[in-house]
């Protein structure tokens, strides 16, 4: 999966996981997810951490890194690509 596909997949998963009333096209990948952007809050942050673990098998080592990683869909995609374990076979 290339980065563009990953970004689109992330948008869809965020919408489903957080039950957002928007379409993937409404989310700008570089826009902030929290506060002024999509308006997500601390509960949503926990949902995103679980999403990262369940779907991409990536566990956040430091909670302090959270704000940087979950700043936008773009930063999430970059983090996944940099940390995802290659599939066996």
């Amino acid at each position, binding site marked *: 999966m290339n980065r563009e596909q990953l970004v689109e997949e992330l948008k869809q998963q965020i919408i489903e996981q957080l039950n*957002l009333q928007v379409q993937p096209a409404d989310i700008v990948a570089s826009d902030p997810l929290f506060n002024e952007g999509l308006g997500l809050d601390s509960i949503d942050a*926990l949902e995103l951490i679980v999403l990262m673990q369940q779907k991409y098998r990536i566990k956040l080592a430091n909670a302090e890194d959270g704000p940087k990683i979950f700043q936008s869909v773009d930063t999430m995609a970059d983090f996944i690509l940099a940390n995802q374990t290659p599939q066996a076979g």
Partner: protein
Amino acid sequence: MYINGASAISPLPVFDAMASGISFIPGEGNRLTATEPAYNNLIDPKLIRRMSRVIRMGVATAMDALRQADVSNPDAIITGTAYGCLEDTGIFLKRLVENGEEMLTPTAFIQSTHNTVGAQVALLLKCHAYNNTYVQRAQSFERSLQDARLWLTEHPGSSVLVGAADELTDYSYGLLERFGLYRHQAGGEGAAYYLVTDTASEKSWARVDRVYTLFDPGPQELQELATTLEQEASGQIDVLLSGEEEMDYNADQYAKVSSILGGGLSVIRYKKYCGVYPTATAFATWLAAWWLKAGKVEVEGWQLLSPRRILVYQADPSGYHSFILLSAC
């Protein structure tokens, strides 16, 4: 205790009753689903996304009752629920099993607790007042009403938001149906909230005179309470809003109460409109208040003008009996 604002969501479309009236059409099938309004006009869309149906129903009716009474921040919020937030409980437990008790998401857990409806109302209002939820099966709403009365006695001049909410999910319906709960009457659900005060105003719908509860009463105990009610109402109970179902397990007790209350009594069975659920008396109370406010009982072609008092009576198969007596203001 006076009802100054009242709102309900039930299988019978009543939420917009003020604008469009009520068409009393009994529900069909074995499961009655609440007729819900468009929530986007009532609750911030950003908050709706986390709310399950029972929370939406509860919050919408609570906000509507407050709006009618022109109260922005009540002095107490009291809620009754028997099942709580079943949908979110189901989601949380399913994930618990599927994920081997790991990687659980917080939303379903937070929203699954029984006091979520009352808590969400408080959060939306930024209301830090007394907030309590009663979970006592088929007397959850009645306990809430009794607590509201106690609160008003201790805090004269205050206002209390009191109500009840219960939902029927696919899973709970499947289970309860297997237990035979809906053999003779459809399962149901709904929410209703009231803004009550200790003094009447021009906004008052009705007065709640008495709330009595009994557990598994014998014939003598039931007779004594019905007689007390009849005397307290000075023989002026015009309508019995009865929770009796088809082939009801407690048919004898319903018959006994209606016979004590007098020959001129009109009996209306309300569960054919809202279905069977433990806090259905909250819906029946709304109906009673609606009719008392209108000064007219009108249902399926039958009519009674100027009702003075209406008694809501439920004899639940679990043994919980409740009596809520309302009168015109």
